[in-house]
């Protein structure tokens, strides 16, 4: 479905007698999305770059039957400014490679989708394709990929290979003016995703034959070069990695403006958007639908799931989350600012909001816990039971793959012959 209000819901894994199931993702980042979260009681600020911390978080998310978790990443230090590095020392800085982190968590989990961010501006498309395919093999079909362009010129200096647009203060005033100078990088990013998708399909599912009579391990007629030629790169192919359990691991992108909506229409299986109310959600979904139409995508064959992002602070006691937000803001020295709507309230209030916004045509939500582990635990032990009581969220995983959780069929390879 396109996410437009008119489109029919997919009831592939809906509980009996219920409306379309609600999909929930959790966006994990550092100590949480509030810059002062790392100083909270219960935070583990010294462990943010270590395996045990992430193992605990993802185990908690899986207990909550969440569709997938995303891992933020970038090829440069975090910054409070969108477009330039800062020299701050009072916020979380430092990161580890998200694809490798997701792979590490794969054998420690069994059902939850694992969606790392990986850069499409500086990282080689071939490496990206085999990395995500390998994550899919290692997780037995639970890999996704959040492709991200690198919009900071400072990060390009870490590679010294190319210049990217140097954004100014004027550029970062609103999403459209941010996206405009980055159009070429988005276009290249879409090509990188396409190259990866072709590499993922370059081995047919039954290419390995082990035919002792002819001495052949492979049927080479089922392995295809990709010969991809983009505007800035080319990839010969085929992949070195056999087709993965999902065939095509879902691509998830975050979008705030026309250009990234088009990127999603071209490249993504899930698009996360940032409305601030139900009407805003409807308006954005209409823009996404227009982008889908412009790119000529057939959403019956290739559905595009739509998620809304929300930063969440959750406490059972009415008013407690707002107080906590104020306290965190005070520690940070500034009110929390976000591209996404910020919700502070009870799990029941959040459930009300999600169901209200969903009526605009959204398939699900990607929740950004403001403080970890507090707000994650509130999602899994407060919000999820609340949604289950209302009959709109799964009570057990009914699929073993991320595509399955999202109600997306496993696609046949583009070279597959029927019969």
């Amino acid at each position, binding site marked *: 479905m396109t996410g437009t209000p008119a489109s029919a819901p997919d009831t592939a894994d809906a509980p009996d007698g219920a409306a379309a199931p609600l999909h929930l993702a959790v966006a994990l980042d550092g100590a949480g999305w509030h810059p002062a979260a790392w100083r909270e009681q219960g935070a583990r600020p010294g462990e943010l770059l270590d*395996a045990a911390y992430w193992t605990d978080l993802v185990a908690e998310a899986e207990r909550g039957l969440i569709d997938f978790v995303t891992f933020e990443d970038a090829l440069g230090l975090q910054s409070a400014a969108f477009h330039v590095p800062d020299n701050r020392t009072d916020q979380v*800085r*430092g990161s*580890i490679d998200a694809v490798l982190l997701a792979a*590490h968590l*794969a054998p420690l989990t069994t059902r939850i989708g694992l969606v790392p961010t990986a850069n499409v501006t500086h990282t080689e498309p*071939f490496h990206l394709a085999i990395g995500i395919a390998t994550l899919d093999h*290692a997780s037995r079909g639970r890999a996704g990929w959040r492709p991200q362009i690198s919009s900071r010129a400072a990060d390009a200096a870490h590679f*010294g290979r190319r210049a990217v647009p140097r954004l100014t203060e004027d550029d970062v005033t609103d999403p459209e003016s941010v996206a405009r100078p980055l159009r070429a990088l988005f276009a290249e990013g879409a090509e990188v995703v396409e190259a990866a998708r072709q590499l993922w399909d370059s081995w047919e599912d039954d290419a390995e034959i082990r035919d002792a009579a002819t001495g052949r391990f*492979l049927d080479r007629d089922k392995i295809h070069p990709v010969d991809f030629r983009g505007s800035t790169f080319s990839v010969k192919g085929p992949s070195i990695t056999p087709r993965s359990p999902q065939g095509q691991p879902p691509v998830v992108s975050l979008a705030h403006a026309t250009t990234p909506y088009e990127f999603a229409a071209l490249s993504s299986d899930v698009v996360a958007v940032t409305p601030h109310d139900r009407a805003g959600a409807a308006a954005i979904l209409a823009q996404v639908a227009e982008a889908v139409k412009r790119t000529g995508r057939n959403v019956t064959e290739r559905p595009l799931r739509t998620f809304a992002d929300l930063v969440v602070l959750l406490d059972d006691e009415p008013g407690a989350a707002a107080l906590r937000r104020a306290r965190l803001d005070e520690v940070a020295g500034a009110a929390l600012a976000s591209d996404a709507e910020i919700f502070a309230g009870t799990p029941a209030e959040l459930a009300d909001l999600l169901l209200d916004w969903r009526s605009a045509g959204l398939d699900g939500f990607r929740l950004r816990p403001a403080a970890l582990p507090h707000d994650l635990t509130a999602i899994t032990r407060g919000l999820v039971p609340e949604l289950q009581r209302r009959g709109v969220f799964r009570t057990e995983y009914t699929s073993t793959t991320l595509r399955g959780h999202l109600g997306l069929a496993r696609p046949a390879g583009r070279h597959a012959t029927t019969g």
Partner: protein
Amino acid sequence: MPATVGRRVHLAAQLPGIHNVTVWSDPRSESQISIDSFIRLARTAERGKFDFFFLAEGLRLREHKGRVYDLDIAGRPENLTVLSALAAVTTRLGLAATVNATFNEPYEVARRFATLDRLSGGRAAWNVVTSHDAFTGENFRRGGFLPEADRYTRAAEFLTAARKLWDSWSEDDLKADAGTGEFIAPGAGRFTHQGRHFDISGRFTTPPGPQGHPVIIQSGESDTGREFAASDAEVVFSRHNRIDAAREFYRDVKRRLAAYGRRPDDLLILPTAGVVVADTDEEAAAYAAEISRGLVGPQTAIAHLEAVWGRDLSGYDPDGPLPDVEPEDEVPLLEGHSVFRKGRAETARQWRRLAEERNLSIRELVIEVGGRQTFVGSPRTVADAIDDYVQTEGADGFVLVPHLVPGGLDDFVDRVVPILQEKGVHRDDYTGGTLRDHLGLSAAPRPARWGGPGRRLRGGHGGHGAIAGPSRYGGNSGIGGHDGHDDKETSA
């Protein structure tokens, strides 16, 4: 453990899964891509108290006569991604990967190894290779741009840049002090590197893991490769698995260390080795012959010959004599394979001579030149041979390449390892937590500079006794020169 023990044997294992080192036609052969196979092999290696588990790299499928080569196992995962998963299901085993310095950038490679070292609690190792072939380059943005002569200058500069990145965070730069509100020290991760191959600067994202730097592995055997190993590597993979050549190589490489202010124990030499174990020596010999026939089927024999002859030989009988036609000169038939790059006509002459001398058929010849198993015999025979090899300074240990995925290490670990432990030359249990501990390497490496002596950056020799007894280093009969080996494995 006996009071007097010999030199420690260092054991590593590689999941082969590709090329003709694994018998895929054996009914016990399982998937070479399933994570279960990797987990099974890694856990077996850890049960045997091995130093590390190694995965090579594949960047392009091999081609034969312009088409994907279909006779051997092909297809493999991205190695660092698999090792990151294995770090979750093992606790002590070192995790080593080949990553090519030609088709990657220092910032990303340094970051990925720092990540693996953190995820594994200090168990990462990097086999640094370079490639200059345009064939592999076709899968990458900048193609096969690197002139052959620049391979080691790029590798050396790549490593220098990576070390700057790992050293850009000092040990106490990550504060995470909720009381003071200081998360990092000012300027943490700042770096700059300017050189012929790289001009980069900025902030590095990742404080290094417990090892500071991953263990650096090198696998070149040319004179330049040996010098690079002596200046920069901590482990060398060699292909010398015949004792005389191995001892010469061992002496030559260890001899070169002093010029860089390094001691013989600062660099371990680990040849790759095939092992075939059975109840008796006779049974093992029979099994080894069976493995060889399994690895070199009739079609494989012809394909190997074609790779050397550079022409279609499909009309020849694999059980008949070698072709009497001459090789085509330097027409690449088998792309992405490193062995037949040089001297094809000379190789053909040698093979023909060998076949005539011993009256070998095509298939028998390919089996003969394809390399035999290094250690074949009963558990006692194999253990004695390995021990002897290490005690007489043919090697510091071995990288074992099993013939079966995933069960190919079981016999060795169950039957040979206990004998090595009895002899006191293999650990009964791990005594340290990091791969550097297992290898007896200093806690953080020296910052070597290409072409000149380095100095130690941090700390002293922090090994935890993985190497027992004094080294008997003293050889000086370097052989130098080139042996025609390529220093890489670039293709699946």
